[in-house]
């Protein structure tokens, strides 16, 4: 019969006797477990952040950008030539069966003034659909309406960063601001989206009706053009179809010859986000694996110390065997010692890991998500390491011949 509580006590005592050594041995496990927890929680945080981003940017999103000019064989990149027309936007909605909605946008950076405050921000000329396609929500007031767009009224919807900078604590609804010197009435405030995964402040934005922007605010040499068109496909599966349909339609509408390059760019926003998400997951896995290597190294440290301990205590093992310890008693004693070392290290690692992960969140503002599963898994893994690396020394101890062991000095 095995008396676990006594075996446990014996193991605990021999660890206490060599305090410094026990702590140093556990250190490997402590570092391993905390590293795994930190890596997994930072990775999980980033993943959730991107998922939230995808959600807040709008799902099934394509972005059609105007113009890529070519000068002497050098392509100048998206937006260099205003080739997209409002009519293109209408045609996409009408002629592409995979498209659910479109939102043509013009934008320019302008200075906003209220009272004695001023703030420069991107001013977007949008249609009412822009809000729904891009998953924006209204905090207060209302968004740009069909009426506003039709009548080219001078109204503005402000992002929260703009509100803070222009109004401070005042309620902006109903107030009149000046955009590039022209008066606009504030009708709504957008609910904050925070930073994008790319680090942009998405709340630093101001919306006015598209028609207002085109006719009354932005002077342009190309009337009727838009900067980009956000397109929402019917479903995620329709994204690639929509992309092809739009490309074909625009090439036809812009009279682009067979071997000529597109004068527009279609970006699959959702797919890009998904790719980033997958990359993040891979990174997390990679970092987690690297961290778990240190757990493994910690395990080897435990095995090393346990082997030293068995050799050091050969005589003790002999005495125990002489007075009646069976092989299993000896094996259990050393196994429990190894397990205690690794679990104590695991526990300390969990605590340190949580503390560091929380500090990372506090000091860098990174999104950190501590999942109970990652904590449990890394703690369990530390126990597993203890058993695996404790087994050989324990087994070796139990194989000792009592006479030889007694004689050992």
């Amino acid at each position, binding site marked *: *019969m095995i*008396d676990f*509580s*006594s075996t446990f006590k*014996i193991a605990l*005592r021999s660890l206490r*006797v060599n305090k410094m050594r026990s702590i140093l041995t556990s250190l490997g496990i402590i570092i391993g477990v905390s590293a795994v927890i930190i890596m997994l929680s930072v990775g999980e945080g980033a993943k959730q952040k991107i998922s939230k981003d995808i959600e807040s940017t709008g799902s099934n999103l394509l972005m059609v950008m105007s113009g890529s000019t070519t000068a002497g064989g050098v392509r100048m990149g998206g937006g260099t030539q205003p080739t997209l027309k409002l009519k293109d936007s209408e045609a996409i909605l009408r002629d592409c069966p995979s498209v659910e909605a479109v939102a043509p946008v013009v934008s320019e950076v302008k200075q906003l003034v209220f009272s004695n405050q001023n703030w420069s921000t991107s001013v977007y000329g949008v249609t009412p659909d822009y809000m729904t396609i891009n998953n924006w929500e209204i905090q207060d007031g209302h968004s740009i309406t069909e009426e506003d767009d039709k009548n080219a009224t001078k109204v503005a919807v402000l992002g929260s960063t703009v509100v803070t900078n222009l109004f401070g604590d005042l309620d902006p609804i109903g107030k009149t601001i000046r955009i590039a010197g022209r008066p606009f009435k504030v009708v709504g405030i957008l609910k904050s989206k925070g930073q994008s995964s790319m680090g942009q402040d998405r709340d630093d934005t101001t919306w006015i009706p598209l028609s207002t922007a085109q006719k009354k605010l932005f002077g342009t040499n190309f009337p009727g053009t838009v900067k980009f068109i956000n397109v929402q496909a019917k479903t995620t599966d329709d994204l690639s179809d929509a992309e092809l349909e739009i490309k074909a339609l625009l090439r036809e509408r812009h009279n682009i010859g067979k071997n000529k390059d597109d004068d527009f760019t279609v970006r699959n926003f959702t797919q890009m986000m998904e790719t980033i998400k997958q990359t993040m997951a891979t990174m997390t896995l990679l970092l987690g694996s690297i961290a778990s290597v240190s757990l493994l190294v910690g395990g080897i440290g435990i095995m090393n110390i346990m082997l030293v301990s068995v050799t050091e205590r050969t*005589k*003790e093992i*002999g*005495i*125990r*065997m*002489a*007075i*009646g*310890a*069976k*092989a*299993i*008693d000896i094996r259990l004693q050393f196994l429990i010692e190894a397990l205690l070392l690794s679990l104590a290290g695991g526990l300390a690692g969990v605590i340190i890991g949580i503390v560091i992960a929380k500090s990372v969140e506090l000091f860098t503002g990174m999104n950190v998500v501590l999942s109970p599963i990652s904590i449990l898994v890394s703690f369990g893994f530390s126990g597993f390491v203890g058993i695996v690396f404790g087994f050989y020394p324990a087994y070796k101890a139990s194989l000792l011949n*009592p*006479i030889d062991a*007694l004689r050992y000095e």
Partner: protein
Amino acid sequence: MSLIEIKNAVKTYITGDTSFSALDDVSLSIDSGEFVAIMGASGSGKSTFMNMLGCLDKPTSGSYFLDGIDVMSLNSDELSEIRNSKLGFVFQGFNLISRTSALENVEMPMIYKGIEPNERIRRAKEVLKIVGLENREDHFPNQMSGGQQQRVAIARSIVNDAPIILADEPTGNLDTKTSIEVMEFFVKLNEKSKKTIVLVTHENDIAEYSKRIVRFKDGKIISDEVKR
């Protein structure tokens, strides 16, 4: 049948292609309540014999019955059990577990017997009192004198109420005065507690405490005299 019954025991060690007989056809029986001293020069086979007697080792051939149990047929775990319940060991170097209190050292055989903690502590305290160390319970071996350590070892050997005590040069590391104290203890255990005691020594005045002296030479018993 006697308590200890050894017949034609041979122990041969083979190193490379040479073999060496540490025990050569030894037969000996010891009855319950005897106090036997085993004497002989080093290399005479007395240690090998004691290891065999103590069920730490099995003879190469021959038979060994301990309290009616055929030791030759036991595996190592069963030998552990027999050592735990039938035998108490007292060694020359005391062999207490270091950095472990006297009380816990004495408790140890009972742990392996599966006796529950409260009973263990009660009995350990009891036997420490018998050996006169009731106020040394919490002392570690390195905080005690040789005589005190040996008394802890004696307490440990009797705590499981084993009928046989095997003492291997128990006074080898002690001065004369302490040796006499320890030997008087063995006499008391033999006479009052009716323990069977087998003692290995090379000192004649230590052997004098026993009632029977068995002498070994070259792996054989050369004399076996019962006193008085």
